[in-house]
């Protein structure tokens, strides 16, 4: 049944494009033929193909990529374990990629990983599909979460996973532990992260009224994280091993949100805006937290209506910012300061940056589109999936990259 009110709501957009189409059909054939050749003969070569969308629909933020690299030094912070940091070699080497088993499912995504790199979580699609947990590269469990679209968001080094499913319009958070699935306390819950101490963080409340929340353990009561005056919505995205929580908050859900920290001592603070080209950023959107560092994107909304991103990391101890050497997304920071980054462009695989060094991870078969979800504490295991849908590739396949 079609919702007439929804049709009416969107009706003002029911227009026709202006003018004649400016599609250069011969160019689609020239460029398409070139891509056929590239695919056939170059395989995994690191060729950067700027697509016509990139060339015509937007400009690659090359300035950010080409600027001198600030070489984020790995520094022991107040919460760091100096011996681990000192022991980290300069760069990951010998990286390999493997596809994880999927219990017969052709399509599956890897969406969660633990600090040890042993436990990974995700979901399979199709008949009999649902959440899946891998341990040491093998299928370890198939938790059954009641509801539609069940998926896992995070897992810790003890194999305790958090995820959610939809019961009608209501999102329900779950915990998987030792073969059992239990509901998280609260209504409309979305657990997004769990640390090795079992502290879970995420969002609670209906859409548009989501608030940051913490559960001190899988069976604990939901505790809303305090919001500063004037702020009413947000969510907690990630939790460090010392209990520091990072998320995004906003005055209300129609406003854009920005990074906020809840510290273990019970206080909170808004993340200061980093200086980017031409002044302070407008927002910061965190992707990850580890060992006293937060990594994510600075957002610059310009007067012409365009939005620009800069990949940055932030040291909680002193509030200092460093631009990351590659302007990618997401940026998943490891305990030793390495950052697993999403692909730098179409036709590229994800990367790991170690200081100013950038290591490109190998591609999987002929896949060209990658998403990453997790990095281990030592920065040597990166989990993710592909989103290609051509040839023998069927949409999503779960991948694990391992390096020495």
């Amino acid at each position, binding site marked *: 049944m*079609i*919702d007439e009110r*929804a049709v009416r*709501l*969107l009706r003002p*957009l029911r227009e026709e494009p202006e003018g004649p189409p400016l599609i250069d059909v011969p160019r689609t054939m020239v460029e398409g033929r070139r891509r056929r050749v590239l695919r056939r003969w170059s395989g995994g070569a690191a060729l950067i193909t700027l697509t016509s969308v990139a060339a*015509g629909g937007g400009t690659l933020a090359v300035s950010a990529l080409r600027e001198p690299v600030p070489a984020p030094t790995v520094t022991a912070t107040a919460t760091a374990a100096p011996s681990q940091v000192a022991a980290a070699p300069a760069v990951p080497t010998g990286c390999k990629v493997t596809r994880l088993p999927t219990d017969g499912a052709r399509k599956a995504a890897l969406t969660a990983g633990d600090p040890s790199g042993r436990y990974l979580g995700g979901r399979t699609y199709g008949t009999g599909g649902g959440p899946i947990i891998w341990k040491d590269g093998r299928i370890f469990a198939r938790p059954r979460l009641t509801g539609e679209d069940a998926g896992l968001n995070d897992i810790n080094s003890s194999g305790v996973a958090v995820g959610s499913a939809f019961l009608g319009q209501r999102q329900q958070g779950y915990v998987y532990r030792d073969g059992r699935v239990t509901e998280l306390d609260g209504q409309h819950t979305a657990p997004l992260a769990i640390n090795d101490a079992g502290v879970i963080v995420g969002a609670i409340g209906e859409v548009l009224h989501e608030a940051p929340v913490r559960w001190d353990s899988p069976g604990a009561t939901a505790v809303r994280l305090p919001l500063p005056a004037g702020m009413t919505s947000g969510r907690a995205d990630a939790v460090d091993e010392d209990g520091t929580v990072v998320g995004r908050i906003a005055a209300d859900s129609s406003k854009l949100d920005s990074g906020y920290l809840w510290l273990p001592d019970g206080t909170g603070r808004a993340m200061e805006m980093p200086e980017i080209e031409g002044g302070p950023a407008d927002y910061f959107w965190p992707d990850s937290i580890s060992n006293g560092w937060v990594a994510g994107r600075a957002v610059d909304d310009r007067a012409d209506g365009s939005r620009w991103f800069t990949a940055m990391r932030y040291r909680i101890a002193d509030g200092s910012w460093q631009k990351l050497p590659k*302007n990618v997304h997401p940026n998943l920071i490891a305990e030793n300061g390495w950052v697993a980054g999403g692909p*730098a462009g179409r036709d590229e695989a994800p990367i790991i940056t170690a200081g100013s060094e950038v290591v490109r991870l190998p591609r999987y078969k002929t896949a060209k589109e990658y998403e990453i979800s997790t990095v281990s504490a030592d920065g040597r295991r990166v989990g993710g999936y592909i989103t290609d849908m051509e040839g023998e590739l069927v949409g999503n396949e779960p991948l694990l990259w391992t390096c020495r």
Partner: protein
Amino acid sequence: MPERSDRDYLAYVHARVAGLRRTAFLLCGDSHQADDFVQETLTKLYARWPRIGRVDNVDAYVHTMLVRVFLDDRRRGWWKVRLLTGPPEPPPAEGNPEDGPVVRAALAKLPPRQQAVLVLRYLCDKPVREVAELLRCSEGTVKSQTAHGLTRLRALLGVPDLEPAVSPNRW
């Protein structure tokens, strides 16, 4: 199945380009960007054309590619994202929810998949099952994304969630 020829490709493009451009335009609200999206989609299509004989439903395949091009453009953080289309002046946050630019600006604030779901369902009039196929997700996901997208869009536009059956007098 034999390889499809360039002649077949040109015939296909000639027959379908207007429809593709319209869908692209409804997705992004900008004629020039719609052209860019179609250009990229057709380039991808041509690159795969010799093997396309294996695909049962070429139209669905091409529309899936188009939606993917749109989502990629919206998701990739390091592209310059066009937040607003049309005039450079941002439309007022609280404008008339029956004005195209106001609705388009509100829609642009939704996550890309929610934008795509709402456009495909309510502007392209595609059923849930077809949208699920285009987005390579379950029908449940389409429904939940639709619900979330509509709720958020109404909130952004200041339209009550439970509007009376008869539209209230706006004066």
